[in-house]
């Protein structure tokens, strides 16, 4: 879950430009020279694909510039690959998913993941903390017919991903920006700063400061337009950890102001629970209060 940034930050930077579709390799453009796009679904709710459809006007405009050759949510016609750009929604939860994502990767010159499931494992990654057999027997009458993995993992755990678009669901403006950027072969403008920037841009009064509500905005990547704080709710972390997310400082501040640890652990364990920074913090918080072993009883 890195937006494809190099670890030492000395590399090409966030959103290292996905390989240009106008590159020197044989372009798989269709007969009219339009770049070909495919949309694939793994374990997910379809919400990110719906965002693509939801941008109806832009989607029609998009369709003028690209050939959408595989998008089962939108049309039953499917043209076989290879494709210039593959958009992948959903996480890997079955042995079949593992095989299929490798096939998808082989078909796509540029592979982009859409949303929290594909990028961090999604809400279903909460299973990673439980025992899969317990879930199976609790949910299914005949669990022996279920073929599943014990974990829900992001696409990048299995194949190389060129760019990760965050969000639960993704933001249509960012989605169109990403596709446009890939088409012209430039770096997408997808900022890595915190949700707080968007609160300040829209003039929202900070719910953490003015109401004492524990908000994940300062450690969450922007992109949603800070919708929740504008409606008097805290940020739930839909876009995953921001760059340099300092969770220990933030949760420590909230805890000292009265929010119980369990509540904070639940807050970081939602759509992006398995994203490394949130995962570590969830584990740290649920490991019990710091220093219980040395603290004397009250």
């Amino acid at each position, binding site marked *: 879950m890195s937006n494809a940034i190099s670890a030492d930050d*000395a590399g090409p930077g966030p959103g290292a430009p996905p390989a240009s579709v106008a590159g020197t390799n044989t372009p798989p453009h269709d007969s009219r020279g339009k770049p070909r796009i495919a949309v694939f679904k793994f374990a997910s709710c379809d919400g990110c694909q719906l965002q693509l459809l939801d941008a109806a006007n832009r989607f029609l405009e998009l369709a003028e*510039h690209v050939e959408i050759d595989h998008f089962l949510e939108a049309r039953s016609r499917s043209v076989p690959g290879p494709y210039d750009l593959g958009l992948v929604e959903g996480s890997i939860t079955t042995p079949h998913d593992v095989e299929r994502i490798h096939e998808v990767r082989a078909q796509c010159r540029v592979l982009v993941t859409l949303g929290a499931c594909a990028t961090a494992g999604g809400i279903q990654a909460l299973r990673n903390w439980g025992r899969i057999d317990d879930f199976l027997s609790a949910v299914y009458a005949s669990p022996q017919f279920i073929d599943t993995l014990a974990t829900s993992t992001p696409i990048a755990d299995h194949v190389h991903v060129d760019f990760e678009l965050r969000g639960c669901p993704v933001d249509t403006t960012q989605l169109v920006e990403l596709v446009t950027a890939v088409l012209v072969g430039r770096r997408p403008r997808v900022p890595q700063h915190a949700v*707080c*920037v968007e609160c300040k841009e829209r003039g929202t009064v*900070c719910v953490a400061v003015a109401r004492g509500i524990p908000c994940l905005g300062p450690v969450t990547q922007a992109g949603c337009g800070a919708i929740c704080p504008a409606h008097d709710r805290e940020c739930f972390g839909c876009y995953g950890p921001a760059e340099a997310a*300092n969770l220990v400082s933030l949760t420590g*501040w909230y805890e000292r102001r009265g929010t119980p640890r369990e509540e904070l652990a639940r807050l970081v364990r939602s759509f992006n629970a398995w994203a490394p920074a949130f995962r570590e913090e969830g584990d740290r918080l649920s490991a019990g209060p710091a220093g219980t072993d040395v603290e004397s009883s009250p």
Partner: protein
Amino acid sequence: MNDGVLAAAAHQPGSWHRLARRDLQHLIDVLVEAGHRVVGPQVADGAIVLRDLAHADDLPHGWLDEQDGGSYRLRHDPGAGPFDHVVGPHSLKNFLFPPRDTLQRWVRVAGSWQEQAIPRDEPPLAVIGARACDLQALAVQDAIFIRADYADPAYAARRDRLVVVAVNCRRAAATCFCHSMQCGPAVTHSFDLALTDPAEGAAGDAFAVEVGSERGAGLLAEVARRTTVGALDDEAIAAARRVPRDLESRMHARSVEPGQPRPRSLDTEGIRDLLFDSLAHPRWDEVATRCLSCTNCTLVCPTCFCHSVGEVADLSGDHVDRDRRWASCFEIDHGRMHGGNARPTTASRYRQWLTHKLAGWIDQFGTSGCTGCGRCITWCPVGIDITEEVAAIRASSAPDGQPAAGHEPSPSPPDAPP
């Protein structure tokens, strides 16, 4: 000479007048009728914010703000007058240098690029309730955006038509330290009219109004056509002048009271050298364990002016806007340049912010970048406090300004200003 000119002469800059509180509505009406967008403080979303103001009744009568590091709370106090609160999350920056602006617009027609005019039809702005620290911030931003060799056209156009109805503070929050930065609480410049409420809280029935400009004189003359704008005798003027001066003395005398937020102050003695000589101070790493790199401090700061400019194209690539948006030295992209990032760590970003604001600014603009408004302290989600950080660096630096033993002074010059 017509009546209006005569009346304006009677209200010339430097003169003082009496305006009944209930007649504030006339001032708003005069501004609106002259085509202004009037903004003023109002209670909304748990704070006192700046937004469009149509009715004087919508001012925060009966509300006070309690501020501390990372905390802002409204308190209902029936005795509070309309301007007894202090500064909130917004400042004049939100209006003169808005978070997003389109600078240029280009269209490709038959293969060649043509610039399209962007309609600039915003009404002139009038701000009611600006404080001394706001006016200092205005002067600081003026020095940045309106220079002899380069003026930002959008800022300059807004600034040129701006009407400022300022207010002398009679109360300070614990986070206020304008007295340390020597720019408040008395309103002394950059205003058209300045209001002072000489009586405590809701008890006052009239403002003392000081005229600060010809524009202010004209406005007050227009108000005088609709209602009585009374005279003030020397004694009443002296009493009004004493209001912010008394507050200033109280701010200097504030001390820590049990159970109360610590009143802020900042020792500016030799601060430029103190900070530039402390670039390797261990405090930068310490504050980085708490700092979230969330940008809130810089975005609420009324003087911070960093921005990023980029092109936004539609899918066809034929329509391109050159947009400007607020940026912050706490964003990773801010320090990114060819070959790497100049400020990859939170410690380096916090240091950049503090040293630029309080030291580099002096070299660059001849003034501190801080007005002591306290916004960065209140609106930091984890209560990081600029006054506390400076005090910590000062306390553990040797008298010659070098950091405490064991830490090599940085051989490199301070980060270049943005």
